[in-house]
């Protein structure tokens, strides 16, 4: 990446802040939505398990998208 932005350029830190949060939040939201759904429908662990798997997949998909963008820009 050509660096013409001077001393304020912090793309590396920005990327680091993004990727960590992405996985955690996606998994938590997936599990949480599943848990709430379970409580209403009475299908105890199943919706939560599906939600967690979906959340992990979504988190990885978002990370993959970021990395693709970084490669495209180079």
């Amino acid at each position: 990446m050509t660096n013409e932005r001077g001393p304020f350029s912090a793309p590396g830190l920005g990327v680091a802040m993004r990727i960590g949060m992405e996985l955690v939040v996606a998994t938590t939201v997936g599990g949480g939505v599943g848990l709430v759904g379970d409580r209403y429908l009475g299908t105890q662990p199943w919706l939560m398990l599906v939600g967690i798997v979906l959340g992990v997949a979504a988190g990885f998909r978002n990370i993959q998208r970021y990395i693709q963008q970084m490669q495209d820009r180079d």
Partner: protein
Amino acid sequence: MESPVHHFELHRLIPIELFGFDLSINQAVLMMWLVVVAVALFFILGSRQRLLVPSKFQGIVEYAVIFLRQTVLDTIGQRGLVFLPFLTTLFFFILFCNLFGLVPGSYTVTSQVMVTGVFALLVYLLSFAVGFWYHGIGFLKVFAPPGVPALLMPAMVLIEVFSQTVRPITLAVRLFANMTAGHMVMSVFFGLMIMGGIWIGWLPFAVTVPLYLLELLVAFIQAYVFVVLTCVYLSEAIHLH
């Protein structure tokens, strides 16, 4: 010792009740008004003289705008310049909220998940509106990544819809969690300093000084990250892989 979450509590300063909603003026609202005035003053004073050879203050304002412009050009491209005023507003509002929160005795507006959540939702709805504006109904292709076998398509669409839904939440939680956590750690160390008294209190105090500088950095980084991610979402809506 005071609870470390004590200074995140909101107190009603002027109670207002309208149509059954609680619209009271609390510290957060007051701080937001202050921030709005401060940002407005920053730009009005910075662009008042318009010298060809900028003064120091005008230089700061110009450099900040040029820096954001370069960020927009890098992530979205020429078409993104339409959004530059919006992104500049967003950046400076969040930055000033973060910085004002560091003044002792004030309130950090961005430590309320409600505030960051509304920002994130606004950004996300905007990116969807922009996507439909540029591509019409074809924007729905964003939920169906190219090059996926037909057999896997339903699962991929499900994952894609979910990953799109999660993104505004991560945007909101990132800003809110960073601000809340930093202030909580600082208040714990300040509390320890008071408890420690004169003999041992200098030790936690020595920690708070670099911590405060770190928080200053985090205030800038988080405002920048929020705007860069907004650029990324807008860029995806405009270019549609």
